[in-house]
């Protein structure tokens, strides 16, 4: 038994989900989802609204019962953890509060259930800056305050894993900034942070790894750099005085060319190949610039077709 424990502790994959499946009525919300989260990383859990992110997180926490598959935290099922708050802190929805209960009582009740001393309540309240309102009933709290309270609750057991579902959703810019700073602070302490979002831009700055889902299925397990590099659709901007000559030479070498202002956008050839073609055709080049797809573009490409609700027509064009 001890050997098993040691192996699990040394396992660098702290969250593992295998074949997670959840159906609501006839609709499959999560479909055979398998992924891992590495220890000590910030992993963004990305997908459009309705992709199954929240359902997946609820299943990881043992709240929703999967129709198939399962998850482990630090190698163990959540139901096998005696004091789960000491291993995993979770904020699924800041609104899970009884409105007439005072903030510190809310935290105290949670702490007590895992044998965490009451003094820890004051510590986490100070950490999220809620000490002064600790005695207020949470029904009076703004969303930002509830979010902080939720994060305080997640930190009660000083867990190594933090799971947060759309923590910045609905917050004002100041609140979003606070969440972002706080997540960086938590990650800096070496905690594993698994955080969902439907906005890639939100994740791009802080996430090491990305788990991308759409329509309940895994689309990619990747990191921010590979996502943009491998997303396909990366084009090269070519500019020169003889556009017609350039176009002919590049097309002749197998590249696809589109006009973009006074330049050409080439797909299907990298900058080196285009440079070689231009050199061989003795054509002058003023610009030869690989253009990586923006993160949002890459994300939209990946999740296209997986969105539950799509806008039609011009509104879909990125601004």
């Amino acid at each position, binding site marked *: 038994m001890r050997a098993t424990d040691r192996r699990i502790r040394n396992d660098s994959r702290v969250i593992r989900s295998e074949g997670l499946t959840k159906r609501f009525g006839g609709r499959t919300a999560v479909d055979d989802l398998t992924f891992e989260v590495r220890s000590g990383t910030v992993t963004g859990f990305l997908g459009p609204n309705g992709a199954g992110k929240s359902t997946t997180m609820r299943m990881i926490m043992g709240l929703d019962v999967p129709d198939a598959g399962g998850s482990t935290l630090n190698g163990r099922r959540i139901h096998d953890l005696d004091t789960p708050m000491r291993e995993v802190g979770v904020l699924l929805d800041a609104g899970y509060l009884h409105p007439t209960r*005072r903030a510190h009582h809310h935290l105290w*009740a949670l702490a007590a259930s895992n044998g965490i001393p009451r003094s820890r309540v004051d510590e986490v309240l100070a950490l999220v800056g809620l000490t002064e309102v600790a005695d207020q009933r949470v029904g009076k709290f703004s969303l930002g305050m509830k979010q902080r309270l939720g994060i305080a609750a997640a930190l009660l057991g000083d867990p190594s894993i933090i799971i947060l579902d759309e923590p910045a959703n609905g917050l004002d810019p100041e609140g979003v900034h606070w969440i972002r700073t706080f997540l960086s602070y938590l990650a800096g302490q070496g905690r594993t942070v698994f955080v969902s979002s439907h906005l890639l831009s939100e994740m791009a700055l802080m996430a090491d790894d990305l788990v991308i889902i759409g329509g309940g299925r895994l689309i990619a397990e990747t990191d921010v750099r590979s996502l943009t590099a491998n997303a396909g659709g990366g084009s090269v901007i070519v500019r020169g005085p003889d556009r017609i000559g350039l176009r002919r030479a590049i097309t002749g070498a197998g590249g696809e060319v589109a006009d973009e202002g006074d330049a050409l956008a080439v797909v299907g050839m990298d900058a080196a190949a285009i440079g070689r073609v231009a050199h061989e055709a003795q054509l002058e080049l003023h610009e030869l610039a690989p253009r990586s797809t923006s993160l949002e573009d890459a994300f939209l490409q990946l999740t296209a077709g997986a969105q539950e609700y799509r806008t039609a027509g011009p509104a879909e064009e990125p601004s």
Partner: protein
Amino acid sequence: MIHQMRSEWIKFRTVRSTVVLMVLAVVLAVGVAVLAGFLVDSTMRIDDALAGVQVASLLILVLGVQIVGQEYRFATIRPTFSATPRRGRVILAKLVVLCVVTTVASVALMALSVLSAWLVTRFQDVRLVLSGPGVGRVIIGTVVVLVIHAILGFGVGCIVRQPIAGIVIVLVWVTVIEGILIGLLPEAVKWFPIAGMTNVNALVLQRDRGPDAVELLGPVAAALYSASIACALVAIGWLRIRTSDA
């Protein structure tokens, strides 16, 4: 398990609704005892003094529904089950806290009722009689009846998992359904979980009330019968909670 019980006790006493229910129960118990002091002729017996506690049992039913229903209403059941994924521990802890609170509350309510009755009868030309045969049954039986009410409410709360619907169900059951059925099927009253408990804390047993009295189970049998129904409801509710998404 002790951790969960502490947690549930903290939760219980830190929401307004449970405090309001407790205050209402005290007002009801004291109010009815005082009223009874004015209404009785010359002698006030213990069951007169405790009539308000009997009425307060409705509030205990509501309390039983609330203690689990509220967690679902405000979705706090999710943080609760995240913190304690073994749901049985949570349900059992809630039930233990509810039963202990109800036991203590029923003793306190009886004490306050008797005190109020004593104060009222001092200024009236009424004699307060607190001893005699059957008094022990009234006192112990009242605790038992209130605890069974709490468990019945809790069972309904676990099954319905919504406080409003649960409260409507238990109150309609007690006041309308049992009320109507008693009129229609007096011989079946002994099988009603609430009305069937009349003997459990009665000063005078039904069989001693004369030939016209409705036939009921004896105090112990009636208590066991209603407690079994209450436990069965909890078991059904537990099965639902165990296998459902929180």
